[in-house]
């Protein structure tokens, strides 16, 4: 590959406030998994800005690697991918299959997680983060979490909502003291 001169990737621009026109169709699909289905999880949360104000025009995309381990359909919809937009109060909800542990690439394992892309008016480039799940055995030894300062790791862990099985709470803080960990790209 090194002999081929690399082209520079096209520049990113904000998704803007009107992305629902073009992107919401994929968030509108009825969840394949009915309530109580095996492996079904629901993540609810809120996207907030520097002032703790809700971000009503954010779009989250969830990616879960590991073929066949996630959401499975036969009509052209991608497996392991889900999209959710925030409402006027900055709230989002996404229903998907609970990810399984995934290899790290060196023989060790990562705790179940999803990669999350965050788009919003005001974000000229999207943000990349990850969500893990409270109570999973591998969390304390996850190689990616281990690389993050202890006091910030919690921002990547969705908390169990005790009264409902498979229900999690995870907020995304774009800026401030409780700022979510975002990754460089």
């Amino acid at each position: 590959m090194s002999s081929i001169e690399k082209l520079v990737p096209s520049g990113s621009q904000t998704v803007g406030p009107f992305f629902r026109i073009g992107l919401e169709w994929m968030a509108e699909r009825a969840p394949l998994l009915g309530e109580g289905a095996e492996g079904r999880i629901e993540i609810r949360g809120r996207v907030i800005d520097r002032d703790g104000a809700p971000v009503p025009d954010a779009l989250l995309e969830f990616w879960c690697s590991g073929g066949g381990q996630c959401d499975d359909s036969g009509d052209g919809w991608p497996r392991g991918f889900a999209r959710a937009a925030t409402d006027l109060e900055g709230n989002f909800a996404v229903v998907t299959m609970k990810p399984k542990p995934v290899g790290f690439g060196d023989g060790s394992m990562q705790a179940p997680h999803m990669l999350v892309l965050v788009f919003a008016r005001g974000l000229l480039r999207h943000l990349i983060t990850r969500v893990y799940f409270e109570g999973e055995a591998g969390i304390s030894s996850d190689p990616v979490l281990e690389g993050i300062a202890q006091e910030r790791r919690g921002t990547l862990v969705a908390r169990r909502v005790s009264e409902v099985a498979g229900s999690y709470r995870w907020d995304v803080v774009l800026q401030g003291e409780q700022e979510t960990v975002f990754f460089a790209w």
Partner: protein
Amino acid sequence: MANLSTVRTARPETQPEFNYPPYVSSIGRSPRMPLVLLPETPTEKTGPVFGHGLIRNGDNDLTAQHEGEPIGERIFVHGRVVGEDGRPVCGALVEVWQANAAGRYRHKVDQHSAPLDPNFSGAGRALTDHEGRYWFKTIKPGPYPWGNHHNAWRPAHIHFSLFGAGILSRLVTQMYFPGDPLQPLDPIFNSIPDESARMRLVSRLDMERGEPDYALAYAWDIVLRGTSDTPFEEARQ
């Protein structure tokens, strides 16, 4: 930790900064803590695959979604999606959305007083073919005012969303039109510091691909991160 390479960061100046104060909304919504290097694990090396079942005939024709034709300048927009190695990205999902010819979005948040067009929704989608090509038929969007600063107007643009091979190739951007005098005044366009990277967001008038007595064409090629060889999730057969 194992010796995995980390996700590569963009070449300096070719992507916008997260915090770009001339674009006022970026100030309170962009992170201030240092971004963390992410090892490139199987999660980062794979990505969603979109099947042809998702796209219906006509999804790439924004002028044929209603009973009548929308008002405005009919145009074709086409181009190629390639990876950093210059090779085509096939089966890339391309989603577009835009304002109508008067500069108004069909969206409840858009308060601009310009009229809606009952024959224009402003959304389309397509999958690239085996040569990485896409095309849309639409109408040229109008510029519109926004609240960023006094007398701020967005240059005419079409929003593009793309998925290539692997989730890291994800790109959301905007395509602009050649010769638009609003571009030098627009903080979103100017958030990309490198001039040549910025100007690559401007499409080119393509007299070869237009149709005489019918429509002009604009050509716009897109380069996604990674290559077409990036391993990704097997497509469901």
